[in-house]
């Protein structure tokens, strides 16, 4: 598991790219006050790739929308790319790239035209915009569809265009809101190759939200777990898993009596003849346990060892599984929409 990679030579200073203190957002919805984000503190250093993980409705997008100046916070403050989100939203907007949950390209616009318009939006000159657009079309493999209307693109192509639009002005910080949701596995993998590539070649700071466990696990250097509007854990995926979840070891015996006897020695839960134990370093403990139990006359018939996932972390933190939550999505934008009502 790569942690901090050593490829950020261009970012010698370790300034904070994002600092937030007590960021809070409450909505009024049908006469009730909904606390979408509750006093979130966060720090993202220059050059980091941080994932915001949590179920739908956890407040990830609302937090992102506050950091990107789309939504004014109810209270709290934040500095993004060196600018205050309340007092200098224009400064924030100039410095960041943002890829929202939806499709960023206008449906009747052509791909290349949208990139040119985007360059102009950021005050770039004509020649610079054209060169940059050509570069992005090339690197994000949009050449085949550059003259097509956005509405004719596939899901994966649209998402790559969104990334290109977010990068036109070479932002130092890129926000990605659920970048791979709704994509087929192939397009997802392809999109991630592009994002990893971008990181390696430019050292851009990336802050993203996802509810895909494997995505956060494999790609982010740091994972912030969010639930019910609050950040409940913040560390590397590796540290979260080893400190909060531990390995899961199951041992099967010839009888329930043996399993109970083994559980009284090692500790663990029994279900019939199967004993389950969660422990750090379970992989190393397993052979020792089998040996010790055998010496005591308790023969292990079958054994499994499973490394913890971020889902186990979420389960340990909240008592709920993130997989179940992801299976029944609650549309988060519904809350967001009620904001200005």
């Amino acid at each position: 598991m790569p942690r901090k990679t050593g490829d950020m030579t261009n970012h010698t200073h370790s300034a904070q790219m994002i600092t937030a203190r007590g960021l809070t957002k409450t909505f009024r919805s049908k006469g009730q006050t909904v606390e979408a984000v509750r006093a979130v503190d966060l720090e993202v250093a220059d050059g980091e790739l941080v994932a915001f993980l949590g179920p739908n409705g956890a407040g990830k997008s609302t937090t992102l929308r506050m950091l990107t100046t789309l939504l004014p916070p109810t209270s709290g403050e934040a500095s993004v790319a060196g600018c205050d989100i309340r007092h200098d939203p224009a400064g924030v907007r100039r410095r960041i790239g943002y890829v929202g949950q939806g499709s960023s390209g206008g449906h009747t616009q052509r791909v290349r035209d949208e990139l040119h318009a985007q360059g102009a939006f950021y005050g770039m000159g004509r020649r610079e915009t054209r060169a940059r657009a050509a570069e992005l079309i090339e690197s994000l493999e949009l050449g085949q569809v550059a003259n097509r209307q956005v509405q004719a693109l596939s899901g994966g192509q649209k998402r790559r265009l969104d990334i290109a639009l977010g990068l036109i002005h070479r932002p130092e910080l890129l926000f990605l809101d659920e970048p791979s949701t709704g994509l087929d596995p192939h397009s997802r993998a392809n999109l991630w190759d592009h994002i990893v590539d971008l990181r390696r070649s430019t050292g851009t700071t990336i802050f993203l939200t996802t509810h895909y466990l494997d995505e956060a696990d494999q790609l982010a250097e740091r994972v912030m777990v969010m639930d019910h509007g609050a950040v409940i854990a913040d560390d590397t995926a590796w540290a979260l898993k080893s400190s909060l979840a531990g390995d899961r070891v199951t041992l099967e015996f010839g009888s329930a009596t043996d399993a109970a006897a083994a559980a009284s020695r090692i500790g663990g839960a029994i279900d019939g003849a199967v004993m389950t134990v969660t422990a750090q370093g379970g992989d190393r403990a397993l052979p020792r346990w089998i040996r010790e139990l055998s010496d005591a006359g308790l023969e292990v018939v079958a054994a499994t060892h499973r490394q913890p996932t971020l889902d186990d972390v979420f389960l340990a933190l909240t008592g709920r599984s993130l997989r179940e939550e992801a299976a029944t999505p609650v549309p988060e934008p519904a809350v967001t929409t009620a904001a200005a009502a």
Partner: protein
Amino acid sequence: MTTTATTSSTTATTGPAASVRPTGFARDTATVFVRESRPLVRDPFSVIFSLVQPLVFLGLFGPLLIGAAGGDVAGTLQWFVPGILVMVALFGTASTGANLLFEMQTGSHERTLVAPLSRSALLVGRALKEVVPLTIQGTIVVLVAVPFGFRLDVPGLVAGLAVLAVFGIGFGALSYTLALSCRNRDWMFWMVHQTLLFPLMILSGMLLPLEDGPDWMQVAAAVNPLSYLVAAERALLAGDLGSPDVIGGIIAAVATCAVGVFVGVRAMRRAN
């Protein structure tokens, strides 16, 4: 080891940061205008396509009017064509908010809100775009009528299109305002659109003279800015540039424009 060497190696690995310049209202408006106009340039046929409705009225309603007027083709067209021009302006700009509505739902509008663009420019640039199809469509309608005996007065047409353009910017801005307040409720947008459009059209005297209608209709027409616009277009296209009706039309167009841009900019500033 020189400073230049260090700088250039850094530039080589990172690529230079784009020269993001502060933008101003006028520049932003032009940028938004150019983006909005591009699909028209790429697909000019869409402009012709939205001419179907006014041309149907001209071709199918016109003969009925001519019949009622005892067969006076030229005279009827002189009266009817200016009304069709106002119809072009009304229907073309009234539904333009649907584009914004769609962009709000896809995420494309959100992208423009995160860009360092003036909120006012996002509205004004879009509204100004309305002038382009309006002018093209208005010109086509007039040219179609000429072979049938419509007498073309070029200065009058230019002035008439200018007044229509001012009105179109305002009415387009109102359509965008409606879209911004409907958010994801398409049905509400189209309900308001349909409910308002036909009464506005009929109570403007665009299709039939209102002089023979009941008193309440004449009162309604008197408070309908479109009535003044229709009267002004009739005077202008007849070449009567000094008519008092022209003043009324200009006031109606400017007022629509001022109100539309005001509420539109306010709605866009509140957008998030």
